[in-house]
């Protein structure tokens, strides 16, 4: 276990250097948390409510496995966003079709 420092503004990793980290702690810009060894910094994030570290992918995964999980997570988010975007597009297209149908009905009504 080793002390690392995390930003109070978003829980992201700041540094593992004591001088730089402690200065940020003293100014309220960081918190110090004991972290498991042999985990790459990019996988570490602080839970600012509990002051506990969150390890992306869990401590049992190595970096390659964690990256695979992130790729999958990112794809899942992208898919969810695309589905939402497609749904909005479908709603717009349906609205356009309805408008055209209404226009055609109006044109055929003899009032045009």
């Amino acid at each position, binding site marked *: 276990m080793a002390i690392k420092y995390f930003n109070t503004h978003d829980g992201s990793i700041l540094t593992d250097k004591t*001088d730089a980290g402690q200065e940020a702690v003293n100014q309220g810009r960081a918190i110090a948390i004991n972290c498991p060894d042999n985990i790459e910094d990019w996988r570490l994030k602080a839970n600012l409510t509990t002051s506990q570290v969150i390890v992306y992918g869990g401590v049992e995964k190595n970096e390659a496995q964690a990256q695979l999980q992130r790729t999958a997570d990112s794809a899942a988010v992208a898919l969810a966003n695309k589905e939402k*975007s497609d749904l909005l597009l479908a709603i717009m297209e349906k609205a356009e079709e309805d408008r055209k149908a209404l226009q055609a009905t109006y044109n055929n009504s003899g009032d045009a």
Partner: protein
Amino acid sequence: MATISTLVLSKTDSRKEGLPLYGFMGSSGDQNEHMSFRVFDSGHKVVGTPWGQGTHSTASYRFGICGDGMHAYSHGADFGTDINHSDLTTQGYDSWTPYNKSTYQTDQYPWGQYYTLSRTGYVTWQSYHQYTESLEFQIGWTKLNMVLPEGIRPRRLFCNRRQTIREMNPGNNASGQIQYYNYTSHMPFVTNDYAVSTGYNEKTQTLVMLHSANETTSTAMTITIFKSSVCLNKVKTIKEFFDNLTATEYFTDTWTTDNNKDWVTVVGNNGYVGFGQKYGNTINYGVFNCNTGQSLGITGAARQFSTWQAFQGSTTTSYSTNQNNLYYTKFNHTWDGTWGMIYTPYYYYGVGLNAFCMNLENPRKFISVSVTRTSRGNPYFAWGRTGFHGGWSENTDSISHRTYAWSFDPTDSDHTTTTKVLYGETNAGTLVPASNDTNLAAASSITSGSVVTNATGVFSVPTSRTFLHGGYYSTNYPLMMQVNWWGNYGGGDHSYTGLYGSS
């Protein structure tokens, strides 16, 4: 009343621009139905010219009044689609679409590695065919790092390799030299004869070169200082600069490196010179006294200020010229030319920021600046008068866009005191609260500001809202881009009206 002579004497340098602009591109996922391109100033006010496209279904190739032939406007063409929705994480340059968002895309020079962009919003990507033979890929690392007056970016392109400085037409091209000059005869010590980094200070007309025994891993260094009575950016021939040398000195040293193409040389106004270099996953920074005529000697030990400083923020796997030439360590500076930044990405080939920011009056004043993003990044640009911003490309659907933005005090050049950094917020009411700032050197006395210990301190940049939308009503991840020309300072098309009445 102004006389003709005072009017002439106060003429603004024709190179001087207004405050920095940036391009902002957003689109639907497939870029067929909707795409927008806007240019904003440092206050995030639009300054570009409107343009549009005319399709509402799959465009098999390209569209847009810009008529650009590259993937930005295409679907299924040479190099893929979907710049905006690509998530740069671990990809390198040949993942063409995500790498547009790499920190490595931009530096102090007014173009990107992949594109050029006018202030009106006319963007064009360069061809990726034979990209690995381009200037930025092959020898972008030989460009001079220039310390320039307020509002000025490099408008001449000098490349220094071996013992020859060559001038090129500025841009990412291989269209022929304008001129060249072999300066070997002016070197007082020629043992190490491969130029690996060069810095120029226009105020002091000083050129500082770093030569090594090779362009790869040699640790033997010769640092040569050339002071001239004429300015390199004003002379018609490079030879004129060397013909008018007023002082030439050198020193030698052994500097640890894993690739000499990563060295960055920043020549301060006070004669101290900062050298930065990426080494493994981090960057190191050292400052040397390169003043002449002070009998400082010919060893690095006799001239070094303090010791080499390793970057103090978090580091993780990240890459540089050890992987390919175009991943060279970058240099940029604030609009007013008072602060510089030597920087590389935090993660792999382009996300986040591992940076040293240094005062350009006195490079002994420096701090680490950190952004630990590992995806959805963007490049960094000069911003406002004395700052930088960029780095964020999260989905702006249902949420306002943000940047990592921070600025310095242009008068803050004393390396014996802490450095004040000002940053933005997500909430403007927090940024400008109903309480006073006190101008003490303590973070607690400054709203949205920090004070950071010189050399060993690190500042991690929070995000601030730009209150821009990404350019599309649904999922979109906007791309930030470098603008060629920010507009004539004081002219009708510039975007800064501060410092009223000055030129």
